[in-house]
C-alpha cells in the first residue's frame, strides 16, 4: 500500500492554507483527519499532487453553542463529539451518531467536517446534518459563504465545496424546547460502512410534532432527506399509525442498490424499521427532556 508521490505543506494559519489551496486548485487536497484520504492515497485511487494539512491551524477545533447555534469547527474529531457532554445533554442525534462512526481508531483522528466534505453517501454525519437542518461555512481566499446541508450534497462524493474552499464550520440551530433525536445504524461489523443509517430529529410543540427531520444513510447516491415523511409528521400526535406511515414514506424515499450488504428490498425494510424505532426513541427523549 504505497501512495504515489505528493507534496505536502502544513501551514500555521487559515489564510496561508487558503492561499495554498488557491494556488493548487487543480491538484490540491485538504488533509484534516485523513481517515478517508490516506486510504485512497494508499490504494492509489486518488493521487493529488499537493496536500494542505490543516491540523496545525489554531481555533478550528471549537465545539460550543454561540449566537443561537451549535458551532462545530473543522478540526473537531469524532472522538471529541463522542465524549462531549454538551452533545450528550442537548443534541441526542449527534451524541448517538458519534460513537457509531467507523471504529475507535478512525474516530480518534477523523473529523466531522472532513467526513462531510468527503461526502461518502455511506457517511453518517451527512444524514445527521440533514436531519438537524445544519448549515456549513465554506471559506476561500476571496471570502466565505454559508450553505444549507440540504443544498450542499450533490451526488456521491460531490458537494458544492470548491477546490479552493475549506469547510471551516458546521452550524446547527441551537436546541430549544422539547427536542429529541436518534441515530440508528446497521453495519456488518464495527468500522464497516453503514448498510443503512437513519437520523431522526424531533422538535415537539405543545404535544404535537413541530418539525421533524429524517435523513437516510447509504441508501442512495447521497444522504437523503426524507421530506415527505418529515412533512407527514408535522402537526401530528405521535401514535403508532403516524409512526408507521412515516416509516413507509421514509422507505419510499430511499433509493437503495443491491450489493453484498443486502438487496434493495432488505435495505428499504431496514429504513422503515429504523425510522419507526428512531421516531419512538426520539419522542421518548423529547418527552423526557433527554
Amino acid at each position, binding site marked *: *500500500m*504505497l501512495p*504515489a*508521490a505528493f507534496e505536502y505543506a502544513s501551514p500555521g494559519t487559515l489564510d496561508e492554507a487558503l492561499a495554498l489551496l488557491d494556488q493548487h486548485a487543480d491538484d490540491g487536497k485538504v488533509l484534516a483527519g485523513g481517515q478517508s484520504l490516506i*486510504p485512497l492515497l494508499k*490504494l*492509489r485511487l486518488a493521487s493529488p499532487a499537493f496536500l494542505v494539512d490543516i491540523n496545525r491551524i489554531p481555533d478550528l477545533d471549537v465545539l460550543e453553542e454561540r449566537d443561537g447555534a451549535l458551532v462545530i469547527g473543522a478540526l473537531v474529531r469524532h472522538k471529541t463529539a463522542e465524549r462531549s457532554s454538551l452533545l450528550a445533554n442537548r443534541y441526542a442525534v449527534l451524541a448517538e451518531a458519534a460513537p457509531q462512526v467507523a*471504529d475507535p481508531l478512525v474516530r480518534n483522528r477523523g473529523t466531522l467536517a472532513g467526513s462531510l466534505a468527503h461526502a461518502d453517501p455511506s457517511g453518517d454525519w451527512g444524514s445527521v446534518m440533514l436531519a438537524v437542518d445544519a448549515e456549513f461555512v465554506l471559506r476561500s481566499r476571496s471570502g466565505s459563504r454559508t450553505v444549507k446541508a440540504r443544498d450542499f450534497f450533490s451526488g456521491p462524493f460531490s458537494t458544492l465545496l470548491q477546490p479552493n474552499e475549506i469547510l471551516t464550520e458546521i452550524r446547527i440551530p441551537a436546541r430549544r424546547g422539547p427536542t429529541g433525536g436518534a441515530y440508528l445504524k*446497521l453495519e*456488518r*461489523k*464495527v*468500522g*464497516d*460502512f453503514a*448498510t443503512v443509517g437513519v437520523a431522526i430529529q424531533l422538535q415537539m410543540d405543545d404535544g404535537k410534532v413541530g418539525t421533524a427531520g429524517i435523513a437516510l444513510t447509504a441508501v442512495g447516491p447521497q444522504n437523503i432527506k426524507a421530506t415527505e415523511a418529515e412533512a407527514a409528521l408535522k402537526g401530528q400526535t405521535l401514535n403508532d399509525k403516524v409512526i408507521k406511515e412515516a416509516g413507509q414514506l421514509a422507505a419510499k424515499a430511499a433509493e437503495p442498490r443491491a450489493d*453484498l*450488504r*443486502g*438487496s434493495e*428490498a*432488505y435495505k428499504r*425494510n*431496514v429504513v422503515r*424499521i*429504523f425510522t419507526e*424505532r428512531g421516531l419512538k426513541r426520539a419522542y421518548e427523549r423529547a418527552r423526557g427532556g433527554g
Partner: protein
Amino acid sequence: MAIDTPPKGFIGESIKRKEDDRFIRGKGNYLDDISLPGMLHMSILRSPFAHARIRSINTKPAEAVPGVVAVVTGALLEQHKLAWMPTLSGDTQAVLATDKVRYQGQEVACVIANDPYVARDAAQLIDVDYEVLKAVVDPYQALKPGAPLIRDEKKDQKDNHIYHWEAGDKAATEAAFKKADKVVSLETFYPRCHPSPLETCGIVADINPATGQATLYMTSQAPHAHRTLFALVAGLPEEKIRIISPDLGGGFGNKVPIYPGYVVATAASLLLGHPVKWIEDRSENLISTGFARDFHMQGELAVNKDGKFLGLRVKMLSDNGAFYADAQPSKFRAGLFHIVTGSYDLPAAHVETDGAYTNKAPGGVAFRCSFRVTEASYLIERLVESAAVELKMDPAEIRLKNFIQPEQFPYKSATGFEYDSGDYPRALKLALEKIGYEQLRKEQAEKRKRGELMGIGVASFTEVVGAGHGTEYDIAGLRMFDSAELRVHPTGKAILKLGVKSQGQGHETTFAQIVAEELGIPASDVEVQEGDTDNTPYGLGTYASRSTPVGGAATAMVSRKLRDKAKKIAAHLLEASEADIEFDHGKFFVKGAPSKSKTIQDVAFAAYTNLPEGMEAGLEGVTYYDPPNMTFPFGTYVVVVDIDRGTGQVKVRRMVAVDDCGVRINPMIVEGQIHGGLTEGFGIAFMELITFDEQGNCIGSNFTDYLLPTSWETPRFETFETVTPSPHHPIGAKGVGESATVGSPAAYVNAVIDAVGHLGITNIDMPVSSDKVWTALQEKGAAE
C-alpha cells in the same frame, strides 16, 4: 533452597509466555524489519483480468524510471526454466505468466528498484496488451462441456476437472440407506475465506555471488521443507541454502505454500548479486495467496425414526482456482475431508470428492485446520442439526444417541481413521450444564409463543491432527515426522532446537515446559530456537495442529534420552547403582534415601567435568519422532443467539466451549488458542467472504470488503475443559491450535437454524449476514 518460587513451568502451569517480553516491547524481528546493505526492493505487477491471453509486454517505460534496476517477466524466467513451479499438490503453477493470466491478481511482471516506492511507481508503467477471455468462476460451470479451458498449457488436460477421490465403502453405504426410515439431506456451501495473518508474506533473498550461499529470510511455516523444495525446484545446492523464518505475525496456513514472489526475488538476487526484498501489501495477500474452503457439499444421513444414524453419503466439489496448489499430504486429494463422520458411530459411510479449476486465486490451504477437517466438521454438524429439526428431536439428544462411546476407543471409522481416544458424551453434558440448557429451552419456548426468535446451537466436533505417521502422510514425498535437539550446557541451562516453527502459538514457552517436566530444568532456563534451517534439525513445520503432537512428542523423547544418560551420571556422583536411582522433577536420588540427591544442574556440570569411566562427554541429543497415529481432539460448543425480525441481525448472546485436547501443557496458552479460534470461527460464520463477480473480479480484496471481527462484536467466550489423554502421545497431548476454528462455525450457524428451523428454514449459507437471515424470514412470512 526455594523450591516453589519462581515457578518451574512444569506441565499444567500457566506461566507467562517467554516470547511476549520482546513482542510487547516492539522488539520482535519480523520479515519487514530485516534490512541488508545494498538491498533492492521488488514490486509485482498483477493481472487486472481473471482470464486473458498476453499478447505482449512492454517493459521499457518501467525500465526508464530512475532507480529501477531490472524488470523481470515470464519470458525472462522461461530462459532459466523458472516460469513454472510445482505445487504442493503435484500440479504446476505459473511463477510469472507467459501465455495467459488465469485469475485476477496473478503475477505478471516484477520490478526491482532501489526503493519500494520507485518499484511500485514503475510497475504501474509496464504496458501489457491483453486479449480478454471468458472467465469461469463457478466450479459447476467450469465442469460443463464447452466451459473455457483454463489449463490449456497442460498436455493431457482437456477440461477443468482436477481430481476424483473416494473414501469409505460405497456398497455398504447404499445398503444402509436402503434400510433407513428416512434420509436427511443438506446441500451447503462453505465459502471462500482467507487466513489473513496480520503480517503478510514476504522474503529477503540474499545470494552471495562469490560463495553461492543463499540466505533466504522467508515468512515460512515450514522452513526445512521449503529449503528442500527450493533445492529441487531452483536447482540450488541444498547445503548452500539457509532459510530463516523470523518472528511470524500469524500464519494460519497462509505461510505454508511457496509463492511466486519468493521465487522471483530469489532469482533476482542470484542474477543481480544484491539482496532483494519483497513483501506483499494487504490486497496482494488477500487476492493471490492461499485462500481457504470454497467447498460445495452435499450430505445425506440415513436415519431411523428413533434418531439412530445408519449411514452417511457425501459428495463434495472443491473450487481450487487456477492451479491445484492445496497444501496437503500427497495421498489425499481432498485432504482429510473424509473425517466427515465426525463424532458419530456411523456403521457405513461413503465420500466422493472432485476438484475443479476456475479463474480464481489458487490455494485451498487449511486455514487453521488440519487439511480440510473444518469443512468436514461443518458438514456433519450441520447435517446432524438438520436431522434434529426434521425428526423434531433435541439436537443434544440426537448427538448423545449417536456418539461413539468411550469404551469403543480405539475406534475404526467407516472412512478409515483409527480414533485414538475420546469421551464425547462427557464434553457435551458439561457444555449443556454450563450453559443451562434446560432453562434456555424453556425460555426459547416462551419467546417463540411471543413471536421472538432465539436459538441454541450445538456442535460436537472431532478433529484429526498431528500428522504423520510418515508412511501414510507426506508432503511432496517428505515424511511427516518432526524433530527436537536438546543441548544442556554445563551450568544446567539448555537450548532446545525444533523442526517446527511458531507463528504466535507460544512454542518458546510450551516446549520449554515439556523439557522442564521431563528433565526438571526450569522453563525459564530453556531457550527454544526455531526457524533457522542451519541451526535446527529437519522438520516438516507447523500447521495442521502438529507442533505439540509431533514436535512436542520429539521434545519429550529427547528429554527422556538425556534423562537416561543423566541417571547414569547421577549414579556415578552418588556412588550408587543406576538401578537404585530415582528421578523426580529435576532431582536424582537414591531409592529410599531422598536426602542423598543430585540436581539436574549438578549432573549437567558433571557431564562436562566428572564423568563415569568410558562415557562420552556432554549432555546433548536429537530425536526424530514419527507418531504412531494421529491425535483426535474434540469438544462441544453451544451458542445462544437472538434474532431481530426487522433487520435480520443475529446477536450472539452466549458461547460456551468445552475442549478436550488431552493434557494441557500451558493452560493459559491453550485458552488463548481457543479464544482466537472461536473468534475466527465467529468471523467465518457471520462475515468473512471472498467472492467474485461473473468476470472474475475479486470482491474482498481489502479489509473494507473482507470483514474480520473486532473485539467490539466478538462474543464473550466461556471456556471449559475435559481431559482425555492421547494414549500414544508421550505426554498425552493432542494439539489445540485449530479445534475452535474447526468446531465453532457449525455451532454459530446451528444456533441460527435452531431459531428459525420451526419456520421451515433449514439452511443459510455462511457468512450468515443480516440480509440473508431477513430474506429467509421474509420468504416464510416471518419477517417484521
